[in-house]
């Protein structure tokens, strides 16, 4: 297995790592860079727990090779908070009890942020469609939708 040297930007910071050519970006983030916020639920792009942004585009990091990150811009859940303060989405997930076990939460946060970045005032249907690639087996989605609505409202102020 040949090793690939990757020079990338993660949450605005330059990062370098080496990984086997067939390693997923999810594994590189977790095991080489130490960013364990992104989770592996299915490893096949169905559950969205590993959601990140790649050049601003929402993707599953389990379906990206670590090698592909070379020269690209990565955004993970670790980049959501600013100046020691939680992102409104993170705060509203807590306020609305929009999580139980928490495995799906980082993916939901990254996907919800991608939605609010392009649509600051989504209706419930738009939220549900945008989060359809994220599976939660605990809360039942209603609280998650409410948390996203509350965060959107807060961010529009």
């Amino acid at each position: 297995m040949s090793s690939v040297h990757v020079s990338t930007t993660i949450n605005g910071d330059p990062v370098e790592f080496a990984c086997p050519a067939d390693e997923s970006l999810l594994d590189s983030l977790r095991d080489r860079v130490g960013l364990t916020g992104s989770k592996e639920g299915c490893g096949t792009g169905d559950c969205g727990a590993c959601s990140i942004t790649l050049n601003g585009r929402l993707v599953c990091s389990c379906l990206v090779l670590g090698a592909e990150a070379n020269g690209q811009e990565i955004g993970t859940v670790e980049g959501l908070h600013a100046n020691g303060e939680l992102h409104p989405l993170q705060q509203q997930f807590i306020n609305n009890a929009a999580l139980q076990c928490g495995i799906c939460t980082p993916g939901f946060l990254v996907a919800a942020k991608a939605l609010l970045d392009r649509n600051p005032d989504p209706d419930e249907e738009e939220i549900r469609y945008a989060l359809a690639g994220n599976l939660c087996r605990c809360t039942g989605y209603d609280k998650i939708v409410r948390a996203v609505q509350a965060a959107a409202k807060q961010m529009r102020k």
Partner: protein
Amino acid sequence: MRYEAPNTTKEAAKLLAKEKGAAFVLAGGTDLLVRMKAGMTEPDLVVDIKHIPAMQEIKTTASGFKIGAVVSGATLGENKKLKKAWPGVVEAANLIGSDQIQGRCTMVGNLCNASPAADSVPAMIAAGAKAAVVGPNGRRTVAVENIATGPGSTSLAKGEVIESISLPKRPTKSGDAYLRFIPRTEMDIAVVSAGVNLTLEKGVIKTARVALGAVAPTALLVEDAAKAIIGTKLDDEALDALAAACSAACNPIDDKRGTVEYRTRVAGVLAKRAANIAFERAGGKK
């Protein structure tokens, strides 16, 4: 496994052609990485084609649209000009997976993965799309319906890659549509699908192309179905003839998603509905 990310199509073809082991093209990776994870595919070489400028753009040309092989579903959906000219093709591509998958998946990947249920393929076939194939022996143009030869297999030779898909220029009074049946509201594999593309002249269908998905080993171009509606105003008689021609062309499998009888029947129903949408989009009035 080795990972290569060449900057030209020629170089990609060369890398693929000279590899003695198992070589795979990586575009969006939404099929390849899943297969690698499952151990179904063990590449010796993966050639990432996303750094090839000729594959990255949607271009408006004198003869229509040229869509690069690595253009994602999300990017297609954001292109207003393309959406206006070929709404059926864009809608079909946008039906593939979640937002996360849309950020990566490509129509060329959908085509080369060669699933009979691939959503964008019947829409492309109906549109008369052509694939620009580049290989070690040069370039050739292949109609999209001639790429897949069976589930998971294509007519591409060793070292050949698809650089782009061309959609023809749109005459006025044209419309296309794609519909699929799934038991859920979204994110599922088509049980049956139908794509219809037509052009009107004085309110009458002058040209048409009809394609079906998930009812045979490959997506089908159904010429008899097109003949059934050409020269009509898509009245009930024409629609029934269209449905009958579609059902007659079906050669589906029985599986957990649908029986042979069900798929055969629904192919006709979906083709009728898609034809109605395409007719309306073309400005047709009954």
